[in-house]
């Protein structure tokens, strides 16, 4: 191989890599804002779904259930605070269950949504079905308790998936509600508006 060849080959490589890099940077520049916007939109939609009558759901702060990053929000309609939304994790059967919980002003559960989980298909994955999520509706912190028997006062377990039911109810949701009570209620509700005005 002569010196001329080496120069030629190197030049060849460099040119192609530079062109490739430029094209990629261009695609990245167009795609990344879209990706970012989509993620934001998806997040807002998920929040909106839990609190349909709110016209603004704003982030209040972060917390770390099970050492994972989670956020919490306040939902407002005009100046009136409708309630709060908190993200929380529950240690389930084979995964941490990522949940989003909406509570009323009096800290009873309004609605929950399961964002992500890897529970057993056919058993534990029923936590994402409406029939189970509805069982948590209207429960306050004292009634977030799983029962294996038929109950409407407490939360009835999914048959055959007590661990997953407990993870959602007694870990994720209860902790989330408890966190809200501790930080927002006992920390003074004034805190919330201060953050976001």
């Amino acid at each position, binding site marked *: 191989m002569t010196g001329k060849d080496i120069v030629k080959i190197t030049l060849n490589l460099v040119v192609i890599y530079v062109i490739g890099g430029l094209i990629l940077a261009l695609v990245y520049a167009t795609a990344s804002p879209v990706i970012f916007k989509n993620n934001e939109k998806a997040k807002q939609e998920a929040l909106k779904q839990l609190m349909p009558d709110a016209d603004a759901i704003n982030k209040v702060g972060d917390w770390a259930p099970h050492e994972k990053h989670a956020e919490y929000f306040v939902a407002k309609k005009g100046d009136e605070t409708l309630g709060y939304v908190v993200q929380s994790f529950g240690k389930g*059967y*084979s995964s941490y269950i990522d949940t989003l919980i909406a509570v009323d002003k009096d800290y009873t559960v309004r609605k929950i949504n399961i964002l992500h989980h890897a529970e*057993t298909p*056919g*058993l534990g994955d029923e936590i994402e079905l409406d029939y189970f999520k509805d069982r948590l509706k209207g429960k306050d912190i004292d009634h977030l308790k799983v029962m294996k028997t038929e109950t409407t006062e407490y939360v009835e377990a999914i*048959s*055959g998936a*007590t*661990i997953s039911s407990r993870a959602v109810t007694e870990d994720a949701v209860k902790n989330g509600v408890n966190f809200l009570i501790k930080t927002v209620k006992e920390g003074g509700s004034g805190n919330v508006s201060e953050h976001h005005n």
Partner: protein
Amino acid sequence: MEATKKEHQLIVSVSPHVKTDETTSRIMWSVSLALLPAALAGVYFFGLRALFITALCIVSSAVFEQLYFRMVGKKSAVGDGSAFLTGLLLGMNMPASLWSFSPFTVHVPVIASFVAVVITKQLFGGLGFNVFNPALIGRAFALISWPKAMTIWSEPTAAFLAMDAKTTATPLGILKEEGVVKLLEVFGDKMSLYMHLLTGNRAGSIGETSAIAILIGGLFLLYRGYITWHIPVSFLGTAAVIAWVFGGKGALFTGDPIVHLISGGMMLGAWFMATDYVTSPSVRKGQIIFGIGCGFLTMLIRLKGGYPEGVMFAILIMNCFAPIIDRGVKSKVFGAVKQNTAKENK
């Protein structure tokens, strides 16, 4: 493609069977006979439904095997009793509640039989070549495919003809989810708990509940020399030690090994499933390793895993390792190999 074609030309010429048909069939029917007490106990406790489920498994296993032989044009070997034994074991590993028409779950034993006989046994080249215990694969397939139907346990009932007995949790299910205190609460006191577990008056799969009936069958097999003590003893021993050391709440050495030994499928698994000739190591030393592995994995799953019962998965996982164990042990212990081949030629 070309390469594989060349390969199987070689394979076909190899003569297939380890044991002659006559002895195979005698072993199969003897094991089936040994299972009879446990099966009868199951029918006694869970009623006619238990009988129907078991019969359904046996019939479908035999039919699928026959159909398979016809399809590939082989000489039928249904008469050797291996399909009967697989069906019987499979049936004994199913909950009696499967005999239910609304919701319809009768297809579960039929499909499980197909998986057991055709996929786990015949696809591997038939009896003697299967790597996994067919009945256990059938059950694992059913448990994962229909997790709800496979975990509805009916209360043992004297009402022989009842179609819908009350459902309840198995002792191991209670132990896993609510702890030993609740278990004692349900069964009264410790003695009464032991008695229920020994006789089989408790929820569970049809044929696994009566520890005494299984033990009778197991000892019969041991006496007749169809199985040796190595696997059951190392299996149960390891499980007992682990249950004793780690099974208690809080402190070490406070667990109750007896409850673990006579609940779930431990007895049935140790005497009838883990001892399967084809899917366990053939050398004594290997059998002991195999048994220890089964015991360890069973207790690992029971105490730390997601499932309340681990016998089935433990044996299946050890089935994966059986060829490796055989390889490892054989290449070192020459004496044991000779002993073994001598026995096989007998």
